[in-house]
Structures are given as structure tokens and as C-alpha cells.
């Protein structure tokens, strides 16, 4: 049968990985119809998906993440993969945090493709050497090291002034206050936590980071910020593991040319961001068959490996061969398992894992506005945050 896959994996590496899947499917006698729509974390792809759904013609599979899977499930569009999951023993292959996201109402409706770690700090050690400074491991250190780097003519923190990048940084600071605090604020949306003292502290730390960022950051793409680190213009960047692709593309090796470390204060914690394919109910039998075949193949080690090697992330499937992966990825894998044990594995708010896109958007608005305007205090921002989250629940 035919599978039509709506996704936004369009970069060269991603495309190559998707191609593996495509070839496998075709080898299995199915046809693969590729529907790729790039843009802004899948904004356009989601628009397409919605119109396709409304017109009663959804694709077989679509790249949907996090809580949105629940929303689609609630609307009754997704089909159960329990058969495939049972056959493939997904429950044992996937950590509970991951499989929870893939299930709606207890049934598997989506397959995970990878796990990104968001709370990474990327640094250029050469620059630190020159400035005579140490790579910070807490936010306090980070703020202290700023003037030193600046004095050496280096931008301490490379940042792109876009809402999601602001939020990525913000959630890293929040995470440093502990996984519980993080969960209470961003998963449970506890009002008291959202406007409490700790949140105010997080917000002020966040605001202090502005001093470390150059004036021109507004609107800058994340990869431009990364290249500032690569070419020594800037010292550090807080960004998910996809930033590694930029370093690799520039021919840099981890450990020597750049270092990947957990974001300050989050050493044994892990904010995850899982990409997944949700499966839409198909009317034709052979299409459904193909769909199940697809779900099965996504979980196969071969795809998981290729895809994640290309993307810089780690496989969602546990117990894979570690040899092809680089140091950063290996560190990520270790932290993933450890943090899961320590209960410090948390879903990324900035990447739509912890909450619905409504709440996420509300948080974005407050955070980015606070970060960019000079006339809001941390207290006001905390209050706004609580109000906005409440309003959008």
C-alpha cells in the first residue's frame, strides 16, 4: 500500500535519513509519498495537516510532537498501533517518559524517532583560553565570566533573539532550580510556582544574561549564533544537540575545537525533545498495512541509528549499538538513562514536550517580551506568566 508522510525534515542530513526509511518501505513493496513542508518548527506542516484533516484526507503519518499528539488523539484522528507495538515490544524498548508521549488513552498512536537533549552548553575552549577564563558550570559563574570575555573583545553568549531561543535559555535556567520546580512550573502549571520567589529569581538571572549577549541578536537564527561560537566571535551558546551539526559541518571535532556540556547547573538533568510520527486513521486496508509497516521500521535500529547520527540526537529506542556515536551523543545517552533514574528527566517546555502549544505560546510571549523590554520587572513578569498560563489552559 501507499504511505504518505507529512514531515518537516528537509535539511540534507535529515533528508538522507528519511530516504533510508523510504527505501526500506519501497523494498517492502510499499509506495512512499513524501510530503515535506519545512518552516518554523513545523508551523506550515501543521497548517497543511489541519487542512488535510478537515478535508477528510489526512496523510498516513505526520510528524507531530509532544502534547499535540494528545490533541489529535482527542479529536479521534489517530489510529492505534498497539499490534505493532506489542509485536515489537515497544514497552520494553522505550523509556516510560517516551512511551507516555506516544500513547493516547493508553494506546500507542505514534512512533518516536529520536530524543534531543535541549539543555546543552556549547563553548569554544580556545576563546576561553585566550580570555583566561573558565567555562562556567553555574549561572552565577556564567554571569561572572561575562566581563572577562567582553574585555577580551568576545561576546560571552551567542544568542538568537527569537522567542523559542529565549525560551530555550529560560527553561535551562529554570531547570537549574531543580527538576521539581521545573515540573511544577512547566508541566503542572502550578500558579503559585509560576509567580513564586524562585521563578522571580530565575527571571532575574535570565534578564542578567542580556548583558552577555551582543546588541544585534534580535531575529538571529540559531545557526548563525552557533557559527559565532565556531569562529570565535562568541564564547558559548545554549542550544539543543542539533547545534552539533553546525560544528560538524564546519569540520570541528568535539572536545578539542568545541565542547558540549550540560547547561550550567543542570549537569545530571535532561530536558528532552522527542520527534515522532503520529499515525492517522486510514480507510483503506492496504494503506493501513503500509502504515503499520512504517511504524515498525521507524523503530528498527537501522533507521534509528542513521537518523540520529545525522541529526545529532540519540535514538529513542534503548539498547542500541553505541559505537557509531560521538562523544556528545554518548554523554547524552548516559545522562538520559541516569536522569530517568534520578527523576530529573523532564520534558522541554520550549519544544512543546511539557505542555500544549497554547500554554507554550503563552509562556513564549511573556518570556520573550520580558527579555526584550526594559520596563518590566521580574516580579511583574512572573505575575504575567502565571496569568497568561492560566488564561490559556
Amino acid at each position, binding site marked *: 500500500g501507499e504511505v504518505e508522510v507529512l514531515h518537516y525534515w528537509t535539511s540534507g542530513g535529515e533528508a538522507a535519513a528519511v*530516504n533510508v526509511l523510504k527505501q526500506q518501505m519501497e523494498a517492502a513493496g510499499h509506495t512512499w509519498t513524501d510530503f515535506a*513542508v519545512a*518552516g518554523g518548527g513545523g508551523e506550515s506542516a501543521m*497548517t497543511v495537516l489541519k487542512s488535510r484533516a478537515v478535508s*477528510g484526507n489526512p496523510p498516513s503519518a505526520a510528524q507531530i510532537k509532544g502534547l499535540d499528539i494528545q490533541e489529535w488523539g482527542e479529536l479521534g484522528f489517530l489510529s492505534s498501533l498497539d499490534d505493532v507495538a506489542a509485536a515489537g515490544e515497544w514497552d520494553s524498548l522505550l523509556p516510560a517518559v517516551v512511551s507516555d508521549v506516544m500513547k493516547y488513552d493508553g494506546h500507542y498512536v505514534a512512533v518516536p524517532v529520536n530524543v534531543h537533549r535541549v539543555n546543552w552548553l556549547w563553548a569554544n575552549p580556545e576563546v576561553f583560553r585566550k580570555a583566561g577564563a573558565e567555562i562556567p558550570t553555574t549561572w552565577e559563574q556564567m554571569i561572572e565570566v561575562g566581563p572577562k570575555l567582553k574585555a577580551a573583545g568576545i561576546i560571552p553568549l551567542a544568542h538568537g533573539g527569537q522567542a523559542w531561543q529565549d525560551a530555550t535559555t529560560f527553561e535551562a535556567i529554570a531547570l537549574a532550580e531543580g527538576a521539581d520546580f521545573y515540573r511544577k512550573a512547566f508541566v503542572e502549571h502550578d500558579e503559585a510556582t509560576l509567580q513564586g520567589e524562585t521563578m522571580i529569581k530565575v527571571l532575574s538571572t535570565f534578564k542578567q544574561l542580556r548583558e552577555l549577549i551582543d546588541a544585534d541578536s534580535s531575529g538571529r537564527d540559531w545557526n548563525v549564533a552557533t557559527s559565532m561560537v565556531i569562529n570565535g566571535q562568541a564564547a558559548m551558546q545554549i542550544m539543543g544537540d542539533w547545534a552539533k*551539526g*553546525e560544528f560538524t559541518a564546519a569540520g570541528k571535532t568535539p572536545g578539542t575545537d568545541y565542547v558540549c556540556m550540560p547547561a550550567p547547573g543542570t549537569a545530571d538533568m535532561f530536558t528532552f525533545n522527542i520527534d515522532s510520527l503520529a499515525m492517522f486513521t486510514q480507510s483503506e486496508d492496504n494503506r493501513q498495512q503500509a502504515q503499520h509497516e512504517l511504524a515498525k521500521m521507524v523503530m528498527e535500529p537501522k533507521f534509528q541509528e542513521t537518523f540520529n547520527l545525522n541529526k545529532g540526537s540519540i535514538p529513542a529506542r534503548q539498547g542500541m549499538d553505541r559505537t557509531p556515536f560521538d562523544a556528545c551523543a554518548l554523554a547524552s545517552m548516559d545522562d538520559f538513562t541516569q536522569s530517568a533514574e534520578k527523576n530529573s528527566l523532564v520534558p522541554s517546555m520550549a519544544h512543546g514536550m511539557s505542555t500544549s502549544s497554547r500554554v507554550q505560546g503563552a509562556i513564549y510571549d511573556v518570556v520573550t517580551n520580558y527579555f526584550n523590554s526594559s520596563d518590566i520587572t521580574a516580579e511583574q513578569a512572573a505575575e504575567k506568566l502565571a496569568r497568561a498560563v492560566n488564561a490559556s489552559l
Partner: protein
Amino acid sequence: MVKPQQTLNQQLLRYGLYAILALAALVYLLPLWVMLLTSLKDVEEIRTGTLLSLPASINFDAWGKAWSGACTGSTCEGIAPFFGNSFQIVIPAVLISTLVGSLNGYVLSLWKFRGSEILFGAMLVGCFIPFQVILLPMARMLATLGLANTTTGLVAVHVTYGIAFTTLFFRNFYVGLPKELIAAARLDGAGFFFIFRRVVLPLSTPIIVVCVIWQFTQIWNDFLFGVVFSGADTQPVTVALNNLVNTSFGGKEYNVDMAAALMAALPTLLVYVLAGKYFVRGLTAGAVKG
């Protein structure tokens, strides 16, 4: 504009005029220049160099890649395969919307009837409807009509939302035509369509040009409708371009982006150049006295 003058003053004025026009042209060209330069550099040079610096060596790799190598999904065939789709959409859509618009404009200016003015006003509201709000109902409508994910469906959508504009252009051009022309033709025995074809259309050259420029550009460059209403195999070139440019992971290849954008714009530019010839003067000269 009526006669070229020879005096010194006039000469100076003319040089001034050319200077202003040239300056304006430079300002308009600046972004193009940046794009062109970028498309000729390699990724490394873009990362390290400055914006306006000339490329170390001219290098058309990016153009080649954009044309036939860049990935826009699981396939890496550049934007070339998508041009066909775009043409399939844009040509009929432009023709139909221009034709319908000119007929509508003709009715609304030269064959007014009671309430036609109100109809026109009501039609114009269509110009202000945000396209985002019609995506879902339109998707449903197309599915009902069996046009979902087809080029025909896209043509229909573009025509639907282009008509308000084309009607506006033509109507506002035709209100300037002398009414006597229509009167004379009606007495000569010509019917509605005959007058349109033989008397009115030949006087419409400049506005047809404007209308075609507008519609061609709008439809060719449309992304929203193109992405939402097309199928996997009917995507227009803007969707491909978007997939190239808006890739959020992995190294960004600005040179390829720029080259692709420039290539995608070529058909539109060609239309501008070709259509420009028909900005003719004095179509109604000698028609009436008064």
C-alpha cells in the same frame, strides 16, 4: 513628456532626472546585490566574510545545487522539478482571473445596472479577507468538489481570490473610457461581447499588463495556498523554495537559498520585461470631442 526641450535648463533638469532615477535604482538593487553576491560565495566564506564583500572567486556551485541538487524533502533534486507545477497553476489561473476580471470590470463600469455599484463594493471586501481564515473551509470545499490536492483546485482558489483584484483594476481603468464609444458600438449593432472584444479590449493593453503582472506575481509567489492545497506531487516551486530555506536543522546554505530564490523569480522577471513593452500611450486619442 509632450516635447523634448533643448534649453540648458531643460538639459540640466534631464540630467537631474536621470540621476534621481539611477539613485533610486541603486537603492532598489541593493538587496538583489547582496543576494547575488551571497549566491556566488561558498558556505565558508559566508560564515566568515562580510556581507558586501565580493566573493573570493565566483562560484556557481550554489546555483547548480539549487537547481538540481538541493534536498526539499526525501528527494534531493533541487527546485527544478517544481517549475512545471507552478506553470501549470499560474498560467491558467492568470488567464482566467484576468479574463473574468476584465469582463466584470467591463460590466461594472460600462454596463452598470441598479445595484451594480453595491455588488462591486461587496466584491472588494474579498480583497481584505485574511487568507489564513479561509484555509480550512476552502480545504473542505475543494474536497467536496473533488479538487483537493490538485492543480485544478489550486487554480480555482487563485482565481477565486484573484478576481476581486482583477475586477478592481479593470473597472477602475474602464470608468475612464468615453461612454460614447460603447454607445456608438451599440448603435452599430454590436452586442455585449462583441463590444468587449473589439472595442474595449484593444484599449485595455496597459491595464492588462498591470493585471497580469499582479496576478502572475501573486500566484507564482504564493506559498500559503500552494502548500495547503497542493498534493505531494503538485507542489509549486515556492514550497520547494521554502523547504530549502526554512530548514531549521543542519547547516544553513545561504548561497543555495539565494540562488534558488533568484532562479524561482526568473519567470516573474521575464513577465515584467516582456509585459513592459505594452505600457503604451494614447490609446483613446481622437475618440471623442469634448
